[in-house]
């Protein structure tokens, strides 16, 4: 169908928002914008649009109508979907076959406005933010087998396939995942799926000693007992600047004690869980601590709360996502102690930190500290008063240099989500 014909049917190029229903229409719209040098904002359902810089764009390409499961073959361990497919629909479909997205998804709706809103798969892939299982089973990028999409010139391109072992050409799935819609408008995504484990259990170790916590994280990472979640929830700060809702959020019948705790998750069949629990009791010297054990149902709920970021529900403050080498967790814990509200995931590698809007200037210091310990920091949620003095994403000089070149190869006129991640791309 020609552009002219489309004008008369489902789309109008003069309108601000396009809602294409097929790949060819996406290509036609982008090709036209490319010719006219018109910047385009690419959106799914806007569930994570608050992350990154705000855009000024002439056009909006809304993918909510390019939705649906194209092919799901449970025995082949993959699902092929359109980008506007709600993440919840994918998770429900997989669940019926006792399968899941192994990287575990985060629900950013809670920190935005207190309600669940997982958004679309396209948006999720664009962000590459995996949940608690990441340290064991990889990030979103490790589960994308292939894609189709439209580049900044309007060309339809594909990469990868549906098989796990594939070295045919550059692995573009990796570079596209986490690019915040600045490289390509995805039109089809193939994800690797995994069998769900039949049971799970979570053990909470009650301690507030940062040395002990970092030692426990290390022992968990050094264990062959396949721990699939490992978090530390401190009962701080005590300075009342923050809504310390920890005891409300983590109210479980079997969580026996108040105060800070480290919790780890075991998944598998019940016999295997029991066997690994025994092993870990020795490895972690659990007899030295006060322990609580959450059964299957409590455990599932516990990790949902973690991955909903419920500790920061509806916050008006800034939320930072910090990733560091795991052995530096003790240093960062000490730095943050009693000053900020935070918790640690990925067995010491991932910190979620809340910074009061009045203390925004402290973000700069936290970032410097994080860079010193060779980590990186992303400002996920900005308070209303955020001044943008500090960049939202971290990148080094050469990383930016290469990124600019990659950007140019996909989107030479920089029309996709300009400035969403870095001002220069």
């Amino acid at each position, binding site marked *: 169908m020609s552009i002219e014909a489309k004008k008369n049917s489902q789309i109008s190029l003069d309108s601000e928002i396009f809602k294409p229903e097929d790949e060819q229409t996406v290509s036609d719209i982008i090709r036209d914008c490319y010719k006219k040098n018109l910047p385009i904002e690419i959106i799914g359902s806007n569930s994570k649009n608050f992350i990154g810089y705000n855009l000024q764009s002439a056009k909006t390409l809304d993918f909510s109508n390019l939705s649906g499961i194209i092919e799901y073959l449970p025995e082949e361990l993959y699902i092929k979907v359109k980008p506007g497919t709600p993440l919840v629909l994918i998770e429900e479909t997989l669940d019926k076959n006792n399968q899941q997205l192994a990287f575990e998804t985060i629900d950013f709706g809670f920190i935005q406005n207190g309600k669940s809103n997982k958004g679309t798969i396209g948006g999720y892939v664009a962000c590459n933010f995996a949940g608690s299982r990441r*340290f064991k089973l990889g990030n979103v990028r490790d589960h994308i087998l292939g894609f189709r999409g439209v580049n900044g010139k309007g060309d339809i391109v594909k990469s990868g396939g549906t098989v796990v*072992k594939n070295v045919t050409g550059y692995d573009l799935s990796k570079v596209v995942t986490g690019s915040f819609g600045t490289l390509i408008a995805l039109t089809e995504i193939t994800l690797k799926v995994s069998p769900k484990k039949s049971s799970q259990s979570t053990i909470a170790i009650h301690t507030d000693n940062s040395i002990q916590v970092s030692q426990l994280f290390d022992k968990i990472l050094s264990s062959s007992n396949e721990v699939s979640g490992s978090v530390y929830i401190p009962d701080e700060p005590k300075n009342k600047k923050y809504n310390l809702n920890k005891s409300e959020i983590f109210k479980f019948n079997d969580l026996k004690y108040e105060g800070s705790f480290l919790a780890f998750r075991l998944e598998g069949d019940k016999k295997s869980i029991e066997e690994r629990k025994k092993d870990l009791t020795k490895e972690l010297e659990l007899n030295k601590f006060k322990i609580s054990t959450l059964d299957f149902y409590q455990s599932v709920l516990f990790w949902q709360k973690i991955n909903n970021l419920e500790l920061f529900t509806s916050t008006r403050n800034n939320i930072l996502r910090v990733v560091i080498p795991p052995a530096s967790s003790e240093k960062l814990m000490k730095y943050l102690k009693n000053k900020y509200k935070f918790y640690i995931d990925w067995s010491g590698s991932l910190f979620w930190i809340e910074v009061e809007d009045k203390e925004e200037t402290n973000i700069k210091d936290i970032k410097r500290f994080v860079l010193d310990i060779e980590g990186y920091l992303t400002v996920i949620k900005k308070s209303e008063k955020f001044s943008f003095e500090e960049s939202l994403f971290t990148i080094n000089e050469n990383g930016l240099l290469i990124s600019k070149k990659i950007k140019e190869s*996909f989107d030479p006129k920089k029309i996709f989500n300009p400035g969403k991640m*870095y001002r220069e791309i």
Partner: protein
Amino acid sequence: MSELALPKIDENVIQKKDFIVRKLKKITRSENVLSHPDEIKPYETDALSAYKQTPLTVVLPEKTKEVSEILKFCNEENIKVIPRGAGTGLSGGALPLQDAILLGLGKFNRILEIDFENKCVVTQPGVTNLGITHAVQHKGFYYAPDPSSQIACSIGGNVAENSGGVHSLKYGTTTNNILGAEMVMMDGTICKIGGKTLDQEGYDILGLLCGSEGLLGVITEVTVKILKKPQSVRAALIGFPTIEDGGNCVSDIISNGIVPAGMEIMDKALIVATDNFAKAGYPKDAEVLMIVELDGTKSEVDNMLKQVGEIAKKNNSNSIKLSKNEKERLAFWSGRKAAFPACGAMAPDYYCMDGSIPRGKLSLILKEINNLSKKYNLAVANAFHAGDGNLHPLIMYDGSDKEQLRKTEEFGAEILKTCVKLGGVLTGEHGVGIEKRELMCEMFNDNDIQQQLSIKKSLDEKNLLNPGKVYPILRKCAEEGRIHVHRGEEKFPDIPRF
């Protein structure tokens, strides 16, 4: 073998050879620059030994700064550069060009840091894959990806090829197991990508670099993740009366939520060949033989093994052996690991193919290969990494018979095209290199290839880094693409290939 099209030779560069050698000797120690024909002969091919080409000169730098200066010089002087690790690649990715400098990373052979606290190893690219495991195994750790050539292949080469191995179904390939790299771009810029953290902020440059076959940058340092060894490993050896039964069993195991550490299939021809060769005690009445390896905690492994046995029975298995100890487990593998040399003993020559297909299509492709075997009147033995659908058909022929060679090439091309038709891909783990270059258009259209070439151009504007590899030169689907082994004279015959 068919005549291979290579990038246009720059006579200007060949005439400047003396100048180039002098310059290189200023950048690195003079003994690191090889130009005598006897010295550079070992570098004229990699493990795809059917293709040979003498490079202009060979340089073996010792420091990242030297690599940077060499690349900067070559970029300024328009000299092509072919990076090379251990030269064990099977797709000709390190094949030299006569007007190119061969840049060997063999002297980058030190492990720089073993960081047990952060569960990673920082290493130079010339260290072997197995060398990393050897450095950390005293504390019960290992590096997960295990390509069959792991005793000799370098970690830098693994990154360039995104190497996998028998255990990639559960543990992933190189791209899922590295944290950082130092890379030198063609203009000499030294870049640090990632580090000791999980993932990086911004574009996943490490993911792009991994599997880029030396076309985007030269890797001078790699940071890999290390894992704790599983507590228990056991295997099952299962025979099936028909191809369909074996294929269905693979799908059923996966459908039942079991992710084996490894799952291998051999057909009748290979069972007989390997058993004669390695005396592994395989059941000779089976049409298809499967090895399923499971790892984890003891009770979990025992339980899964029991389930695998039950699933196999439902799929009409006619023999099941479960390993009782490590010796028995290794015995199960001994025949499979002897697959390639066993084929070498059966015919003067064999071609090894490498494609991937959806697991559920295993019996379809096996039947198709058997039909093609009859059509071409050439024997074929099939080895599959069935868990991830990666297949290695071995076509046996006599290379001294030109007609047989032609037929073998046709046969091989038909197999690869069938893989793509069945929803699979051209190469699962050997890489495209020069070997499958002209077949890329079976899988990708002009837009797809153009997008990839745009990335190449953006990072290596003059197309000087490993030119002529991966992307089609002829733009036709040439019938190329297998390991060529004549009278057992495989390159690196002592490296196991499976």
